[in-house]
């Protein structure tokens, strides 16, 4: 049975698109046929992060309006042939999306794909609402600072009351916490909320911590999902997250600060 995953946050700039690209690639690399949809109509970015911006012909809105078929609009990823991208339209706005149209496309994708990753726009308006409405699982991307945590909390409330599963009284959406741009050094200095702080406020299952990393920016600029950079800490963090989501038991990493030379020599705890 196909599962629809929404990557959402409420707040902007926390790493939703980076996360969508990474986990979609991770799931496909694990052998699952995966589609990733950009719901950010008017501000499309996913195609850039996935490095397929020069191959976009038709987009999500064209398919909703019946101007193209799903197969015409889906772009096969150049790194992994089990991964397909459905780009957003750059020339339209969120009103071009309709619940009926989105539902139809997702139903069609469910026949053929194992995982469908929906990259939500920021905010709680129409685009974000439609991205999460049909979801089975939600990845809540949060940065370790108060406004991001507050917005995530708001989004969790919307997931539990305004989604299709909530409206039809089905089993609720499974919610997972992804803490991104985490910097243990700054947590120690008291400049950032710790993993424990965030978990206490959100009381949510932690799927993984993604450390603040230069490799994320490099990956975005070069159009390759950071998970393919297996040497980078962020890439490894996303690989852990995908594995945990698929049921593997992996210990959490990147929560404690990196030890310097002295730390390594005289090893603390």
């Amino acid at each position, binding site marked *: 049975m196909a599962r629809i995953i929404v990557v959402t946050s409420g707040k902007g700039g926390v790493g939703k698109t980076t996360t969508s690209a990474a986990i979609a690639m991770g799931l496909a690399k694990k052998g699952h046929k995966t589609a990733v949809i950009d719901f950010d109509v008017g501000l499309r970015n996913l195609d850039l992060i996935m490095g397929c911006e020069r191959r976009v012909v038709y987009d999500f809105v064209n398919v909703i309006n019946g101007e193209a078929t799903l197969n015409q609009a889906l772009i096969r990823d150049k790194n992994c042939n089990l991964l397909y991208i459905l780009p957003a339209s750059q020339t339209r706005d969120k009103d071009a999306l309709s*619940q009926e149209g989105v539902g139809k496309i997702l139903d069609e994708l469910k026949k053929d794909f194992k995982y469908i990753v929906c990259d939500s726009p920021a905010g709680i308006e129409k685009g974000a609402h439609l991205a999460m409405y049909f979801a089975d699982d939600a990845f809540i991307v949060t940065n370790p600072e108060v406004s991001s945590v*507050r917005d995530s909390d*708001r989004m969790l*409330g919307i997931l539990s009351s305004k989604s299709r599963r909530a409206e039809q009284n089905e089993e609720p959406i499974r919610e997972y916490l992804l803490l991104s741009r985490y910097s243990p050094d700054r947590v120690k200095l008291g400049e950032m909320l710790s993993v424990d702080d965030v978990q206490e*406020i959100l*009381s949510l299952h932690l799927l993984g911590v993604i450390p603040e990393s230069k490799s994320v920016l490099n990956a975005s600029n070069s159009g390759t999902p950071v998970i393919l950079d297996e040497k980078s800490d962020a890439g490894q963090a996303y690989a852990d997250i995908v594995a945990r989501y698929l049921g593997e038991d992996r210990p959490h990493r990147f929560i404690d600060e990196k030890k310097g030379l002295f730390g390594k020599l005289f090893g603390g705890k």
Partner: protein
Amino acid sequence: MSTDSQQNAHHSPTLEFKSSTFSVPVLVLASNDVITIEQQLQEKIHLAPEFFKNSPLVFDLQELNSLDLDIDVTELINIIRKLGLLPIGIRGGAAQQNQQALELGIPIHSGYSTAVSSGTQKQQTPEPEATTELQVIAATNTLITHPVRSGQRIYAAGDLIILAQVSAGAEILAEGNIHVYGSLRGRALAGVQGNTEARIFCSDLQAELISIAGNYKISEDLNGAVLNQPVQIYLQNHTLVIKDI
């Protein structure tokens, strides 16, 4: 702009029907003496004017009818309206009474059936010790087992019991008491219909605002000794008292 809104209207329907359950006071009558009814109803209302002000009301004639006492429904409805209550239904009425109510726009609730034979002659004299009885149906308690998130609002007609946290930016309201068996970080308002006996209980007080029957304190007013503690909050001489439990 206008084309946009037309498009929206096309995509999402402007209305939908939903089914809801409400808790409404039921006025059960045991006498057909409208003057006594008016007097006693007035006294009851005087006890809790806030509660009864513009309150919806269903009146129940089953007991009257079982005693074979007839009552002028039109007059009864006028009295109820005159006292500032809003009658929204008749229950247990005989066919003619239902018809009278319907003519005044009052719907008929078929809570249970009444077997009043129309042939029997109805007594017109009230029994001396017959009294009106105002029965406020005990509002059921509301139990919430999942976290109440920022931006969510929960209203309970009776007591509100929450077995999880209440996040900052959430709002919980109850006409009765509020219990939160988790961190209370949002706003909690108990006794919102004026019940000054209502209390708030929580196992970890970090609230943005607490209020009982309109008397409130904001987060800044809470002193450090009660923060992050399990406490109860109640009213004493119009002042909120916060005590550990």
